[in-house]
């Protein structure tokens, strides 16, 4: 789960990491009130959960309160990479001497956390690594030993700091690591953390992605994700609430299957036959008829969908139960779009019988089914 910049900054502040003084604007008309409490010049930033917000025009600057208000109005009327701007964060603009990067994320190969610091900041860390790999310093963290002050100082030194700045910058690294652990962040970064002209360090932008699987330990944010604002579409939200894995794509063939790998392979096979999948939807293991119904509803709520492909490999899941589920779902949801169903595995015969009797054609081969649904979709 991605946190908004203003949420992330509030947490950083709580942990003693300096961030620019600022305030959240939920309506453009509030801008004046908030801006007058700050010192100009201002940075006015759209609160959207997309990367590359800056390049997309989501960050504006203003020298006066009226200009700040204009900027806020402009942002509130924007869509950034398709996302509506619902909130704007206004803060004091920092006089930047240097932009740095610091973050903590997962190192999959080493089954560990890794701290990353860079003397270049402001860009995506992958871009920095691509352009100047020698500037990106990594340190593996054994969570049993933790990330200590001296680790933080080692990194601060390696990105070029010494003297009291070394200790101060290190302290901020250490604090960010604490935030990351306490909030189960799979990614946390200050990008950039800025060395201001006065030599002080300020986290000018912050990004936190909480591990979805750990959200039960962070109920406040889980609640916000499911009930409040988020980057999720209605379909995505509905999927999360029903424990379905759903990803919207831009084709016209709706896909439902059981198992992430199988569904990915189904999309690939559709594409192999020149079809265009409209989504990824994994119902998981042992889905009930209710779950299948919700899945159908979500997929069909996409107006682009011209045909449906349901690909079930009954293992522990029994095909007859799946068949009944599809029938029940079809009836409830009122599916009118053409469906191609591939159903194999445990109790396959019984499942096929049920569907065939309901005049739904069932195929055995995933490839054949894919070819067929692509044909229909054209």
């Amino acid at each position: 789960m991605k946190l908004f910049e203003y949420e992330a900054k509030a947490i950083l502040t709580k942990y003693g990491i300096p961030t620019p003084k600022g305030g959240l604007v939920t309506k453009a008309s509030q801008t004046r009130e908030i801006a007058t409490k700050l010192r100009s010049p201002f940075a006015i930033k759209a609160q959207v959960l997309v990367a590359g917000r800056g390049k997309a025009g989501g960050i504006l600057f203003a020298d006066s309160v009226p200009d700040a208000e204009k900027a806020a109005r402009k942002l509130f009327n924007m869509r950034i990479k398709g996302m509506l701007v619902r909130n704007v964060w206004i803060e004091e603009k920092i006089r930047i001497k240097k932009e740095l990067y610091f973050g903590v994320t997962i190192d999959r190969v080493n089954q560990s956390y890794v701290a990353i610091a860079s003397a270049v900041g402001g860009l995506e860390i992958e871009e920095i690594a691509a352009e100047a790999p020698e500037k990106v310093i990594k340190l593996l963290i054994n969570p049993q030993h933790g990330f200590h002050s001296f680790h933080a100082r080692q990194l601060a030194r390696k990105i070029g700091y010494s003297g009291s700045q070394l200790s101060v910058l290190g302290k901020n690294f250490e604090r960010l690591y604490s935030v990351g652990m306490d909030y189960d962040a799979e990614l946390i970064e200050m990008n950039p953390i800025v060395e201001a002209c006065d030599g002080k360090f300020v986290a000018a932008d912050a990004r936190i992605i909480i591990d979805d699987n750990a959200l039960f330990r962070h109920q406040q944010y889980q609640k916000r994700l499911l009930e409040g604002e988020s980057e999720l579409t209605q379909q995505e939200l509905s999927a999360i609430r029903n424990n379905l894995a759903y990803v919207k794509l831009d084709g016209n063939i709706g896909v439902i299957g059981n198992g992430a790998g199988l569904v990915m392979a189904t999309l690939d096979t559709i594409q192999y036959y020149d079809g265009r999948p409209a989504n990824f939807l994994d119902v998981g293991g042992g889905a009930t008829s209710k779950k299948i119904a919700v899945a159908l509803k979500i997929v069909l709520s996409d107006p682009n969908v011209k045909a449906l492909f349901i690909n079930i490999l009954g293992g522990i899941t029994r095909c007859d139960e799946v068949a009944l589920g599809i029938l029940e779902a079809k009836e409830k949801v009122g599916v009118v779009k053409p469906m191609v169903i591939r159903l194999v595995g445990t109790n396959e015969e019984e499942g096929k019988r049920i569907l065939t009797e309901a005049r739904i054609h069932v195929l055995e081969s995933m490839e054949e089914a894919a070819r067929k649904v692509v044909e229909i979709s054209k």
Partner: protein
Amino acid sequence: MGILVDKNTHVIVQGITGTQGSFHTKLMLEYGTKIVAGVTPGKGGTQIHSIPVYDTVEAALEKHAANASIIFVPAPFAADAALEALESRIRIIVTITEHIPIRDAVNVMKFAEQVNATVIGPNTPGIVTPGECKLGIMPAHIFKPGSVGIVSRSGTLTYEIAASLTRSGLGQSTCLGLGGDPITGLDFVEILRMFEKDRQTKAVVLIGEIGGNLEELTAKYIIEQSYPKPVVAFIAGRSAPPGKRMGHAGAIIMGKAGTAESKIEALRSAGVKVAEKPCDVARLVARLLNA
């Protein structure tokens, strides 16, 4: 023989009294897996499918000898269960549970590393050495003993491919899922190493997917070691967009990293035959084994 589990594997089931744990214990017993005890805190003294249940792993091991554990414990408590098994000197741990927090998984893996234990999963269908031992939730009937080793990041897609191998008369030495999470206990390279040593295994099927760089590292390993057994691969997620998790927490393209193209290219340049579609795998394996 196969790798990791066989006739001599004696198993405890952690979380045996839950819906999943109880159901799959029955299926594993039917398969012939030697389950000696179950553990569910608070249910000690009861029985499930004639298997005695204990409150702690320690208590179970006071009465039974076991060298493997399979975990069905709910995600918030699963890491604790894994650590409990590790501390009790169980050295093969299959973690079926999905949705375990990353931080918890990292802790388990570090501890396992320290004590030199093998963790399969989390979020894995498990491991099966056909005809000998099934430690997982995969359907039994799709496997048969044979000479193909299968290692996968997926569940049902593995069944799809295993079933088609079996239909083509290609049995399996061992089939296991690494798990669909970003942090898993094993990687492809470790399994390739085991399959290399296993006499029964004549060819390896590797089922990868987008996210991370395990497949690329595997390609490197195959080149560096001049891996002696034929490898056929399938990589799921060619059509996946960047930045989206495709069901598995680990299946995500970050920027330009973790794409199917990158993996396929790396494997191909290591001499691995990469199938275009799942159904092509069996044909490629047959061709290599007959070559």
